[in-house]
């Protein structure tokens, strides 16, 4: 594995795909967890009244918040696909050998889906901002 060695200074893990995917998994996990609290609370408003619920859910339809939602979907999708990669590394005998290729597959799948979902997720915002 020539690609793993970067001269005398380099290591297989530090500063490379393995480390950065671990960092990204942490960051996206923590972000999604904090959103989950807020989301259970806003959903709980269905027990207050339809009016209150609709009013608060209206916040989600604001174009700027809509952009944050696209970020949320991006964070969840990365965490999900990279999580499957971690499972493959742990349980598939060839997983550790192909961990780098698996990460690029994760990133590729993520990019394709994000591009495909962008228009349906932001229809209203595009309409409001650009008149599309």
């Amino acid at each position, binding site marked *: 594995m020539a690609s793993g060695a970067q001269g005398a200074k380099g290591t297989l893990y530090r500063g490379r795909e393995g480390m950065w995917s*671990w960092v990204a998994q*942490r960051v996206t*996990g*923590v972000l*999604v*967890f904090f959103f*989950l*609290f807020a989301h*259970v*609370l806003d*959903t*709980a408003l*269905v*027990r*207050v*009244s*339809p*009016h*209150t*619920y*609709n009013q608060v*859910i209206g916040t*989600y*339809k604001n174009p700027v918040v*809509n952009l944050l*939602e696209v970020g949320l*979907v991006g964070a*969840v*999708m990365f965490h*999900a696909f990279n*999580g*499957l990669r*971690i*499972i493959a*590394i*742990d*349980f598939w005998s060839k997983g550790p050998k192909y961990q780098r290729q698996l990460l690029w597959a994760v990133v590729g799948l993520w990019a394709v889906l994000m591009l495909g*979902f962008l228009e*349906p*997720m*932001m*229809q*209203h915002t595009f309409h409001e901002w650009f008149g599309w």
Partner: protein
Amino acid sequence: MSTHVSLEPPRTGNPGRSQRMRTRKGPGKVTRGNFELYSWLFMRASGVLLVFLVLGHLFIMMVTDGGVEKIGFAFVAGRWASPWWQFWDLLQLWLAMIHGTNGMRTVINDYADKDRTRAILKGLLYTAAVLTIFLGTLVIFTFDPNIKG
């Protein structure tokens, strides 16, 4: 190597606090049994289920049929009229909360060095998690489509 632990999860990322504590106590004195092994296994098992539950949820809510614009009380009422979606949301709530809380527990163990800080942060975390799971469960089971207002 303790005789207690026959199967250990691979050491991905930082070694957690509990693993450091374990080695400090020396071999043969595993104080927490197999807890970290089950925790590791739970993250993977719940993770696989959550990929389908959460991505399915996001696809329906955010992508199909006009995205977030369609969501409102009437939309929720329509979905929770079906036991299928009630069960979906209940399972999703419990798995996501436990998966996320366990992940946060690992993060706290890794970065909070003082015993007291760790205890306080984990106390807050578990309190918030229990309350949120309780509230969410209550909402799913007591939902009333004909509520006034």
